């Protein structure tokens, strides 16, 4: 009897890449980048626990699914059916994808004085050629997963804000998977270029609409040029078989201010590779996150801030609450080069374990080569404060609500820097839902 083994995901991806090659314009700059990237992926393969950066996160269980790499059908969704996944009470631009394909029906893009549109259009159209050649794949790392995304990069958000522009409406980037394919792998690719003095706010969410397996391997490159302000919010509250590997790279020029808030409340496995590269003086970088998970969920924050010039700051603050058999990882790297004098770099990672089976692995890594800097880091792991619980209960607040209130309090200073009130409200609600309580107060 013949034993035909199922083709493993790596082989399947490489085979699919060749099929993709036949369809694309080989004269394009991006084509060369893709060809190089697939070679890297072919060489390195998927990361395993043997690699230091993946010691506590195993992709094994999610790689065994038979993902379709190019979804066949064009699927449509009605706005009212998915409205709840949008921050729908604010006026915003929307870039929406369904099973990896752009949905013009759900989107609201613009070319009026700025470009808030699609990656596929930006790659194809000559008028974007310069921006693509200057910025595409310039800061994404050459690791295997980012390279895999690069090889398959066809679709995603393309945002180019020219200088002196305050984008008044936030931009929402949503990726839906419908479950019409039994298992699907998505590789969105976003490029965001914010020129001098401009300000933009972006909300990103990946949402599966049923329980079929989804693996998203996303790459986002963000360029904050001189004095630009970029606020990025990631809402990760996906269904139980949806996994996300988010690779985000931010390059900041002098006096720019960039922040990324990551709210991780769901999904099967979530890995956030968040990298800030500073290039200029008086740069401010903020990385904050709240993770609240249970069951067997896994969330891994792998952050890196690279300080290269004097008088810059970075602020990292990650809070985690882990119940049931959930596992968390925080691996925070801060690299301060010799030239980066007067750097202020802060890092904090505080965790609460709600059960004996929950686990957190936290590892701060500071490498400082300058001698006149202020750097601090601290991580804590604890249980909920019993004396605070008794105090609240003695005032008539039941155990469950008291617990929720304490967890709110715990994550509060992360929420305090969220600038869009509607997002703050939404996160509050998500936390309440996650904890299964009704909240009779606002923070």
């Amino acid at each position, binding site marked *: 009897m013949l034993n035909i083994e199922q083709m493993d995901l790596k082989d399947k991806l490489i085979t699919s890449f060749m099929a993709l090659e036949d369809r694309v314009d080989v004269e394009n700059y991006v084509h060369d980048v893709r060809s190089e990237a697939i070679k890297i992926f072919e060489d390195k393969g998927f990361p395993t626990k043997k690699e230091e950066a993946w010691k506590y996160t195993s992709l094994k269980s999610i790689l065994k699914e038979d993902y379709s790499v190019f979804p066949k059908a064009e699927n449509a969704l009605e706005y009212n059916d998915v409205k709840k996944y949008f921050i729908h009470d604010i006026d915003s631009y929307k870039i929406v994808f369904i099973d990896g394909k752009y949905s013009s029906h759900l989107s609201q893009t613009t070319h009026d004085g700025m470009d808030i549109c699609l990656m596929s259009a930006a790659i194809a159209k000559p008028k974007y050629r310069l921006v693509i050649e200057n910025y595409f794949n310039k800061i994404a790392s050459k690791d295997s997963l980012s390279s895999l995304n690069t090889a398959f990069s066809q679709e995603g958000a393309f945002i180019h804000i020219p200088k002196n522009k305050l984008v008044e409406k936030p931009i929402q980037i949503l990726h839906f998977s419908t479950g019409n394919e039994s298992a699907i792998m998505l590789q969105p690719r976003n490029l965001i270029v914010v020129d001098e003095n401009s300000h933009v706010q972006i909300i990103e969410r990946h949402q599966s609409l049923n329980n079929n397996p989804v693996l998203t391997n996303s790459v986002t490159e963000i360029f904050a040029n001189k004095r630009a302000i970029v606020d990025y919010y990631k809402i990760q509250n996906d269904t139980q078989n949806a996994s996300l590997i988010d690779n985000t790279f931010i390059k900041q020029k002098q006096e720019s201010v960039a922040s990324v808030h990551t709210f991780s409340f769901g999904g099967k496995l979530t890995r956030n590779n968040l990298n800030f590269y500073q290039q200029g003086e008086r740069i401010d970088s903020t990385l904050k996150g709240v993770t609240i998970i249970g069951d067997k969920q896994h969330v891994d924050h792998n952050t890196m801030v690279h300080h290269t010039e004097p008088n810059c700051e970075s602020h990292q603050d990650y809070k985690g609450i882990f119940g049931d058999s959930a596992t968390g990882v925080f691996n925070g790297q801060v690299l301060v080069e010799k030239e980066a004098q007067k750097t202020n770099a802060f890092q904090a990672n505080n965790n609460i374990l709600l059960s004996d089976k929950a686990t957190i692995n936290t590892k701060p890594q500071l490498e400082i080569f300058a001698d006149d800097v202020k750097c601090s880091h601290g991580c804590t792991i604890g249980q909920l404060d019993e004396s605070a619980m008794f*105090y609240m209960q003695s005032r*008539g607040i039941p*155990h469950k609500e008291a617990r929720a209130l304490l967890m709110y309090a715990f994550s509060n200073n992360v929420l305090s820097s969220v600038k869009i009130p509607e997002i703050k409200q939404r996160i509050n609600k998500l936390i309440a839902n996650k904890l299964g309580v009704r909240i009779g107060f606002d923070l």
Partner: protein
Amino acid sequence: MLKIHNLHAGVDDKSILKGIDLEIKPGEIHAIMGPNGSGKSTLASVIAGKEEYEVTKGEILFEGDDIGELSPDERAHKGVFLSFQYPVEIPGVSVTNFIKTAINETRKAQGLSEMPAKDMLKLLREKAELLDIDRKFLSRSLNEGFSGGEKKRNEIFQMAMLDPKLAILDETDSGLDIDALRIVANGVNKLKTDDNAVLVITHYQRLLDYIVPDFVHVLVNGKIVKSGTKELAHELEEKGYDWIKEEVNA
């Protein structure tokens, strides 16, 4: 209102309360005095339902119901209030939100709807005035960075808002200067009616100059060894606790 019969309680294997009997009727103010380590704070915590203490014998009746098996919040819903010796700091939750939550959870447990925001605001304003509390204070994080006096005033403020039937004041005077003590005591006195009761737990007599008790009980080594009127407090202040200990031993 409160009847305690032969109450024994402890932590792990260590017994702390060794047979307490106490009855408090509506309208009364009782004081429990005693040396350090006599079990005063344990008694307060046990009445309020702190779970780390185990009741090994006896019962606690509140308005005729045995509350021994109830959780701290269920006891609070019945009208028991404990003012903490060391109020806990809860960064990230404002005084107002905390009190709102406490009141509405209590109302929910009593089958009432939430208090309308307008009424809540009025009540907050009224009680803040009673205790000479600045409005700005209400939006600060609960007890975070409060001075000793502010913490205790905040406890009595919460008591005023929750309007309990029985208020237990655990060492409310500790860490207070005389002005703060006067404000706190005046607050308690203003809240006192013929229908509610107060149990003051203190090491020193000075608080009892302001909150004048109807009965004073002396707790030594987990037992009430002597009960009397407010004069007993003065006697203790003058002579200390040693003579009582000797009397008990003899």
